[in-house]
């Protein structure tokens, strides 16, 4: 059974017919070719597939595309057209990655945090990252990258 869905992704409306079992992460990657959202563990543990649905971070490997029907979805590609978002700059400046596989999920979770709490403590950042796993670096530089972005936001007054 095919079900019509209309999902706004990064500000653009996409209408498709999908099977009910199509997971949002495959919908984004395979159908919309937005491959910045990664599939890591596929068991809602690692957070590599984190996107925003209606401004809240969720793991898109555990959401059906049909559940996102009528919703606003933001992926890593939607943060900025040219990697100029303060979080993206922060991860470059503070060397917040090695292989980069976890980075899109880290950034989407961090962006959810900064929307709720623009000036988080180190503890609050680490707590917010509970659902995102990095296997290269440890988390020190990731935390610094998010602190860098929080600082940018406080001086620039831009939305996240």
């Amino acid at each position: 059974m095919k079900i019509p869905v209309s999902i706004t992704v990064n500000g653009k409306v996409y209408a498709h017919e999908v099977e009910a079992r199509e997971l949002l992460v495959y919908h984004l990657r395979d159908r919309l070719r937005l491959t910045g959202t990664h599939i890591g563990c596929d068991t809602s543990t690692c957070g590599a597939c984190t996107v925003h649905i209606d401004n809240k971070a969720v793991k898109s490997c555990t959401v059906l595309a049909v559940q996102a029907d009528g919703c606003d979805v933001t992926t890593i590609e939607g943060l900025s057209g040219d990697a100029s978002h303060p979080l993206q700059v922060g991860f470059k400046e503070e060397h917040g990655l090695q292989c980069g596989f976890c980075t899109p999920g880290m950034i989407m979770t961090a962006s959810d945090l900064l929307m709720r709490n623009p000036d988080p403590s180190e503890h609050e950042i680490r707590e917010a990252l509970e659902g995102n796993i990095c296997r290269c670096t440890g988390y020190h530089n990731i935390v610094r990258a998010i602190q860098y972005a929080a600082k940018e936001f406080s001086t620039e007054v831009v939305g996240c």
Partner: protein
Amino acid sequence: MIPASFDYKRASSVAEALDILKGDGDAKILAGGHSLIPAMKLRLSQPSVLVDIAKIPELNFIRDRGKYFAIGAATTHGAVAAHKSVNAKLWWVANAASMIGDVQVRNAGTIGGAIAHADPASDWPAVLLAANASIKVEGTNGSRVIAAQDFFTGFFMTALEEGEIITEIHIPDPTSSDTPDSWRSTYQKFAQPASRFAIVGCAVNLQLSADGTIEQAYVAFNGVDSKAYRATSVEEALVGRTLSDETAAGACDGATAQAELIMSDHYADEVYREHLAKVICKRAISACMYD
């Protein structure tokens, strides 16, 4: 991993959801999907139809009804954790909600979905048992209210009958009682570091008299047995005593007395889990001194 094929129907009211359920014995309710979808991806669950109730307005609310808080079944863990009035009057419940999974899981997973799934390692069952909560369910023959004590019946098993839907969770609010400051409560857990599921979780809810004597005690565990349970041995050892570290150390010995079968897996074997249950129990009781 891709789930097996199924049909999908989005219900706009509880009545409509009940109607779809009635017609198909293999239909399942979908709310946040954070228990069901992983099970479907592993093909442990292969429903014929998913009835999506996530967007039904009458299931999305938190209301202070004076003697108790009513939480709609499709309310996310994150919404409970962030709710101002729940934080003000039942802070330990809000705090327990903030310990479930991680931010992303709390943004999608729902309280009704979690208790319907009744994973023995999930957090809500022990919290609801210790809070003396009850669960309102609706079926085609009307609604009924089930005490949390009677709700969790076994390994992933509940008292829900076929065709019934959880609509509300009722959590008593002690601040509305005659002695609003007499309750001390906490939920503590030893979490699996990746999934944040409880290897052992312990919820403690105590009523103290003016001189610090424990008058009523509710203690419940998750993660230990094949279902969440009330540790009546611990409760009996607490009532009549003064809340202190010594009382906690003595009472925690009975932590697993009511467990039927202590779980054992590659995170924690039976002996270690039993030990952890006592340690977390002691910590939780002691933490009530500072609540």
